[in-house]
């Protein structure tokens, strides 16, 4: 395993008295696409949202254990949330474009970060939209509202918006579950190209999707990590009986 970019040790997360993660340890190698799978309510989304501290926004949450991003504990006192979330971006289940034009959506994070030079912005917007594989579809309509795009296009604009701020890791929370099959496969294509430059961590309910595009798969059940390994191995020869049952659709 190459060096881990994110290293999670014994992560426990509780909402009030209800503990939903019971001590999960997982290391993410840089440059891999890791799929987090498991039945609803198994804690995989909570796990994902701990990695960029989005759980902080939920009141009454208690987080224990350590998460190191490039060696730094992200839950340490004085950890810079803004910097963390710029480095670890997130794409949501529903496409959430801001109610601006396509251009302004992608440029927004850059403008906030203080980049205002028009030429530079133009260049970064184009580069990001190309990387998200949507440039050809929208290049003539950059001034149009992002809300006017189809769901799949909106999702790719959201991915481009993340890419524009040059994160190192992108968290994806069921990025295709709200989309039709064609849009989903377009997003999958996009993710496969992004894998070259970014570390991707994706929660998905779609096991075929996990097996098609991920390098590694982590199987969660009832707040525990059951099995974690190379995707081909895990789908062909799962080590645990329960993993095999889940992958074969006997529950979930």
């Amino acid at each position, binding site marked *: 395993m190459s060096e881990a970019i994110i290293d999670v040790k014994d992560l426990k997360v509780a909402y009030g008295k209800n503990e939903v993660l019971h001590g999960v340890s997982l290391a993410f190698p840089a440059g891999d696409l890791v799929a987090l799978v498991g039945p609803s309510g198994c804690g995989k989304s909570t796990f994902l949202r701990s990695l960029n501290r989005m759980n902080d926004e939920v009141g009454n949450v208690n987080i224990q254990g350590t998460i190191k991003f490039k060696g730094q504990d992200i839950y340490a006192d004085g950890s810079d949330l803004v910097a963390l979330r710029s480095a670890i*971006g*997130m794409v949501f289940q529903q496409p*959430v474009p801001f109610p601006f*034009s396509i251009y302004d959506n992608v440029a*927004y994070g850059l403008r906030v970060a203080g980049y205002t030079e028009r030429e530079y912005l133009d260049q970064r917007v184009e580069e990001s939209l190309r990387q998200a594989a949507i440039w050809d579809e929208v290049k003539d309509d950059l001034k149009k509202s992002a809300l006017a795009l189809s769901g799949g296009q909106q999702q790719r604009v959201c991915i481009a918006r993340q890419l524009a701020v040059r994160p190192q890791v992108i968290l994806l929370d069921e990025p295709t579950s709200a989309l039709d099959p064609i849009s989903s496969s377009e997003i999958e294509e996009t993710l496969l190209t992004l894998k070259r430059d970014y570390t991707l961590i994706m929660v998905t309910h779609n096991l075929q999707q996990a097996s098609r595009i991920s390098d590694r798969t982590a199987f969660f059940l009832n707040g525990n990590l059951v099995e974690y390994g190379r995707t081909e191995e895990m789908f062909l020869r799962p080590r645990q009986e329960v993993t095999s049952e889940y992958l074969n659709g006997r529950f979930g």
Partner: protein
Amino acid sequence: MKRKNNAKLQNKIAMITIYCLVGTVCLILLGILGYILGTGLPHVSWHFLTSESSSFQAHGGVRDQLFNSLYLLVLTLIISVPIALGAAIYLTEYARDNWLTNLLRTMIEVLSSLPSIVVGLFGYSLFVIKFELSFSILAGALTLTFFNLPLLTRNIEEALRTVPATQREAGLALGLSYWKTVYGVVLPSALPGIITGIVLSAGRIFGEAAALIYTAGQSNATVSYTDWNPFSPTSFLNVMRPAETLAVHIWKVNSEGLIPDATLVASATAAILVIVVLIFNVSARALGNFIYKKITSAR
């Protein structure tokens, strides 16, 4: 089969009842509006709009009252919009869901149902007497701010709440600070609703009389519309002069007017008031849509 017929019949009865109720509401509203415009509009003329009101003779106008109403409205909004916006942003974005926030909300609700005459007398004792502002536009504007704040805060809060939580998450996940998310993502999305809320509350301010009788006063100082120095006592911009508004004028002409054409003047003034409020409401919608389009597409 019998059950199904029953369901159909019930549905029909419910529909008819609802249509009747809606019809009644519409009839009442149209009746009032029609009556006001019908009795008032024939007496509205250019002369009426542009001449001073008279105290004893017929054929006075409402020039000063119309200007005063608009001026008071603008001043009130200048004071109350920033405060209400701040309060609403705090309540929707920052306040934790605890007893203190609930208490705050309850107080705002109570304040919004306070009779305006009570707000007026409160303004009188605080601004006119205690702060020695005397009967003045400033005292009136401050009192109207008290009157307007609860409703405006609620309106803006509602507008902010219509912005989905996912928008806020998306902003935060992009590495924006919380304030930047609120300012850059939530506020622009909510702007059309906020503008509509402001303009609707403006209609209420514009028609308010009771809160102004004891604060802005019931008389007009002689003003000059060419004197642009707001500190000059005769300037139309002077905020320390007493000022009668359209709504107060209606009340005064009707209750203690000495002019022979009091009823006509009151009706015509009421018609003007209603028309201005109508213009507010229609333009609120147009302005909100326009700004939303402006923000969401090309900048």
